[in-house]
């Protein structure tokens, strides 16, 4: 597209899931599209593209952000963690295992956003209350589960995390 419009392209270097990646993108390239189209990391899902659904949530320097409300050029030089980077050494992370165990997903479209959001949340709050869990996932929409199993999965993930660190 930008080849046809003659749009200026910018070289961007990102550390994605610990790997240095480079792309040449127009300034208007959303981080979500850069990850999916330019870097081939299609684990990050794109739902509403205006910040409501949370499906595109990734970690920017460790903090969850909407990749559809961030330009790739803005985060040049920064670290990104996507859902592909949550598992370690081929083993699912505690949050991923808990979602699987508790049936915290059905179609899976919203799941990458939930996993990234919850991973950062449980890093900062290892023993959350029900109320805190509700608030933590309130910015992510799921159209399958009715949320109850997602809430259970967050508590279960906190348990797994505690068992494994203890």
């Amino acid at each position, binding site marked *: 597209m930008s080849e046809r419009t003659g749009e200026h392209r910018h070289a961007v270097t990102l550390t994605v899931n610990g790997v240095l990646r480079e792309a040449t993108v*127009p300034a*208007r390239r959303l981080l979500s599209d850069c990850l999916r189209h330019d870097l081939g990391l299609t684990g990050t899902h794109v739902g509403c593209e205006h910040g409501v659904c949370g499906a595109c949530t990734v970690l920017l320097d460790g903090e*969850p*952000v909407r990749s559809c*409300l*961030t*330009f790739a050029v803005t985060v040049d030089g920064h670290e990104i963690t996507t859902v592909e980077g949550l598992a370690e050494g081929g083993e699912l992370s505690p949050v991923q295992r808990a979602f699987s165990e508790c049936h915290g997903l059905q179609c899976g479209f919203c799941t990458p956003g939930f996993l990234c959001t919850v991973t950062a949340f449980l890093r900062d709050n290892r023993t959350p209350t029900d109320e805190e869990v509700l608030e933590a996932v*309130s*910015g992510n929409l799921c159209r399958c589960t009715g949320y109850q199993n997602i809430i259970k999965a967050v508590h279960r993930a906190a348990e797994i995390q505690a068992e494994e660190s203890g």
Partner: protein
Amino acid sequence: MKPSPFDYHRPAGLGEALQTLAETGSHGKVLAGGQSLIPLLNMRLAAPGHLVDINGLTELATISADASGVRVGALARHAAVERAGSARAVQPLLAQALALVAHPVIRNRGTVVGSLVHADPSAEMPAVLALLGGSVRLARLGGERDVHARDFFVGPLESACLPGEMAVSAFFPALPERSGTAFCEVARRHGDYAVAGVAAAVTLDEDFRITAARVACVSVGPVPVVVDVTGVCGPRPPASVDWDEVARAVQDRIEPEDDIHATAGYRRHLTGVLVTRALRGAAQDAAQSTAHDAGEGRA
């Protein structure tokens, strides 16, 4: 759902940013957190020719607090201001309101000053600035000016920030001793824009009588609606205030409209309920700080 093309500028300093804004005039737009601007760009409701990305200007990510109030720089994210203990100590209303701004993930990126310039009459930050009588510092090439909150919010999504200008910081004044604050709102879901919301500040005298009380209402007018209710509330203790009368005094001043989320009548009703709730909460908060001060005085 992709933005139109634009020329991208990433200034290395504030001077360069102001130079670019001066050159691009009404075609230039500042990109800070982007949590309001990028949805508008994605939906092509806005299509500026030039974006000036200030995310590299970390010298603007400041939060400084002293006895007079809290000054927040243009790149201070909502989450950082919410967590800043010094800001919370001087002006607790900031953190009370920030907990209601969108979702935690949006607050990681969005900025307080960006919310002010966006000037959404449904948003919390403009109401806080309006209630406290704060100001926004606007810089342009070769000068700057401070604009009081009452002049800053011009209309829905319209602030006093002119082409070529950039909001570099905002100042949220502290309240006098024996004051308390609260922010109450009703939203369909946690983190949604409020159907109605009220920020309140109350000051008591040494005998716990209300000497100053005012509210700022969101989603019920083109800009945050500030109403001073000192006359209806005081000078008497909160327990003997006729709260229904106070609610009516505010309801007479607001201009809610029907939309897809609520009727004007429902917004008016909610605002009345929230005025009472927020003022009583603020009075309680003030009474606690007054009791605390008295306790310290005796010790």
